[in-house]
């Protein structure tokens, strides 16, 4: 801490009227406290809680039967299936590669490291729509590799591989950025000891590194999964919106909503809202274990 008490405060004449120090001089008057708490509650209730409650209220507005019917609809089931497949691919790829990237970026020193870390974080600052656009530019019918791929029977854009690629892009940093600060902090001593004692690289990783980071890894995987299943903008650009074929759950929600099937739309949305709530509960439980607070 390099802060000092500002001159204005230090120069205040002490002792002219010695005010009795309140019990807690780091707190505000009672009335101010309640206004602040009231405003915070009002804002969070109105802006954050209400939309969440609204999802479930609308989903059940026509009763359980209509709710169930919206979920077992053939297009809804196809959307759920595609969402699960895409999330499995994206989470799988980003977990394995997140571990590889974190290992490289924390256990070794090399030139260009900070540039590489910036690149890993980059997808967070790219609009989801642009994330979809870049894959259309590469693999679309008019794209760089599109015509060649189509000639060879490979369809990427407007098919599941494109959806998976766009999802991998938007969730790229999630696992790595949870691991990197932790592995940085843990250093390389334990790994060095294991290697010195004769363990192979893989064995060192599995028996020393992995147990040390397992909760942070789980945390990253959960966030990556929630975002993979819920991604809308990037997937919307590459999907082509073919009903029952290239629609994920968020896209199915959009179609239903635009067709004024509000209740059915909210029914499918309630599944994703539930996933969000469960993810947050798990996040809170994990934070207690990891012992640190997180941004995003």
């Amino acid at each position: 801490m390099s802060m000092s008490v500002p001159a204005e405060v230090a120069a205040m004449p002490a002792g002219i009227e010695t005010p009795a120090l309140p019990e807690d001089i780091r707190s505000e008057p009672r009335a101010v406290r309640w206004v602040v708490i009231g405003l915070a509650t009002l804002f969070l209730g109105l802006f954050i809680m209400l939309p969440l409650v609204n999802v479930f209220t609308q989903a059940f507005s026509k009763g359980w039967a209509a709710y169930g019917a919206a979920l077992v609809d053939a297009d809804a089931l196809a959307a759920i299936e595609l969402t699960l497949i895409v999330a499995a691919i994206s989470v799988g790829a980003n977990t394995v590669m997140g571990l590889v990237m974190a290992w490289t970026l924390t256990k070794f020193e090399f030139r260009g490291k900070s540039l590489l870390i910036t690149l890993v974080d980059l997808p967070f600052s790219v609009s989801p729509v642009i994330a979809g656009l870049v894959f259309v530019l590469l693999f679309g019918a008019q794209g760089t590799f599109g015509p060649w791929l189509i000639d060879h029977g490979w369809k990427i854009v407007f098919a599941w591989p494109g959806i998976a690629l766009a999802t991998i892009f938007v969730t790229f940093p999630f696992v790595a950025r949870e691991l990197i600060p932790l592995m940085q902090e843990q250093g390389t001593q334990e790994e060095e000891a294991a290697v010195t004692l004769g363990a192979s690289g893989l064995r060192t990783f599995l028996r020393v590194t992995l147990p040390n980071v397992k909760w942070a890894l789980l945390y990253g995987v959960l966030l990556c999964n929630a975002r993979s299943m819920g991604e809308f903008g990037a997937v919307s650009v590459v999907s082509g919106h073919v009903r029952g074929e290239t629609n994920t759950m968020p896209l199915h929600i959009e179609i239903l909503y635009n067709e004024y099937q509000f209740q059915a739309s909210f029914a499918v949305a309630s599944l994703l809202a539930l996933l969000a709530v469960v993810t947050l509960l798990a996040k809170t439980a994990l934070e207690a274990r990891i012992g640190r607070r997180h941004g995003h």
Partner: protein
Amino acid sequence: MASAILTAAAPRQRSAVPGFGITFGLTVLWVSLIVLIPLAALFLKTAELTPDRILAILTAPRTLHALKISFGLSLAAAATNLVFGAVIVWALVRYEFPGRRVLDALVDIPFALPTAVAGIALTDLYAANGWIGRLLAPLGITVAFTPLGIFIAMVFIGLPFVVRTVQPVLEDLDADLEEAAATLGAGRWTTIRRVVLPAVLPAFLTGFALAFARGVGEYGSVIFIAGNLPNVSEIAPLLIVIRLEEFRYADATTIACAMLVASFALLFVINALQRWSQNRTGRL
């Protein structure tokens, strides 16, 4: 850029930990395939156009309007979040009250809730017959399908960025400083203004910039409530999608490039702010 990294493919000091070669190679390959090459393709596609064409696309009234809507409303939403974020973060960190933990958990909802779900929920709430829209209609306020709706959606998604960036810094703030100021006779307001505020200011600015950046690129939670009228309530990401669907690739890539350049500039500012914050408070 990738080749620049590749040429440096030797660790600066020999490490006893094995696996540098293969994990480094895989990392560079993965980053190149998923992030670097796709983003480079966007810039290369735009670079094929003549400067006149790029300028014409960017200065077309509809493009300018869309950029103005995305950047302007996002700025306003981030400023709103700065004020309410400050109130919320103060209540969460400094006060004990029933329901504090629930409020704390609620802050993360916009991060976790898929944007399309947030989009339809907000639209439903603020539509003329919705829970909130019904109350605002008699006052002559229309939120859904107007720029005001875009602003509301951007406030929703931006809030956690401000709260979660400032919260840890305020939690770690040394109590001694405030006590010293109070002991020396400073009023509570003076203490907050002269002692607390300078310490948390970099975090506030970082949160503001993060919320702003998120709002500029936001798509899912905005398009349902926006109305999407060209020149009135059309955001830049939607214009990219529209141009793409019209097969006007040059327009789509040029607008996308302009937005990317702006977000990279913002990222640069955010990194600088974070370094400043770190230097001042000594925490990561």
